[in-house]
């Protein structure tokens, strides 16, 4: 390794995990375990347990939304592709989710009125509040969600 760029490429390649799961609740805890192992492998985090919990919860919400809203019929025959990548400078964890379900209509969403006690609408609220970056892109092959947490 001679330049900074080379070493960054090596890190990106080394610290990427890909996971492909059935779109069911059953295996979401596996994803949670992967995320917590990844977060807790990072040295010098201020609050590793809290960070790990928050990342797990945000990604869990993104996946339950895919199961409930993108795959409205037979989610159990559908799948979610996930990539977890740890980057340096600045240090961050990037989670990419791909599904082949229905597109997401961002205009369908409004901020929940928390003090009124909502029954719906906590999912996206949590994702946005627990992560530092949340992007949605509709691709020809499906939906792409990107969640980033600065570490």
């Amino acid at each position, binding site marked *: 390794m001679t330049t900074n760029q080379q070493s960054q490429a090596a890190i990106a390649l080394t610290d990427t995990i890909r996971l492909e799961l059935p779109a069911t*609740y*059953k295996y*979401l*805890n596996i994803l949670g375990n992967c995320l917590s192992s990844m977060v807790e492998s990072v040295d010098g985090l201020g609050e590793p*347990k*809290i960070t790990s*919990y*928050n990342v*797990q*919860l945000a990604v*869990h*919400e993104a996946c*339950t939304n895919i*199961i409930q809203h993108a795959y409205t019929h037979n989610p159990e025959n559908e799948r979610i592709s996930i990539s977890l990548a740890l980057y340096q400078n600045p240090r961050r964890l990037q989670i990419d989710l791909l599904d082949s379900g229905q597109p997401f209509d961002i205009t369908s969403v409004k901020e929940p009125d*928390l*003090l009124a*006690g*909502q*029954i*719906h609408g*906590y*999912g996206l*609220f*949590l994702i946005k*509040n627990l992560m530092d970056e949340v992007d949605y892109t509709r691709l020809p092959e499906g939906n792409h969600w990107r969640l980033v947490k600065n570490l």
Partner: protein
Amino acid sequence: MDIMIKEYAIRYIAICLHGRVDASTISPLRAQVDQLLNEGVHFFVLDLSEVTFLDSTGLALLIYLLKRSQQVGGDVKMVFPIDEATRRLLQLTRFDRVFEVVESVDLALSSF
């Protein structure tokens, strides 16, 4: 002199949850909550002290219980989780404002 003594009882139920309360584990809790509401119970204490993970599905069920109880003149009090990350989640979503938070199930019952 006529003396008439009447005795009343208000049913209150403490629901103590443990571990993960999320989309993958919610079904039995939802069924239990519906059954209690249909039986006419409307005073509840939610004991979340041992809860270690709570998602939007879990949050929604807690709010559902609150709304249905309040519709019939009841109320739901909440014992906060010990787990710090779950506590913060309940603060972020303002559940500490929407529910009356109590120290323990015993204290909650004596304050209804």
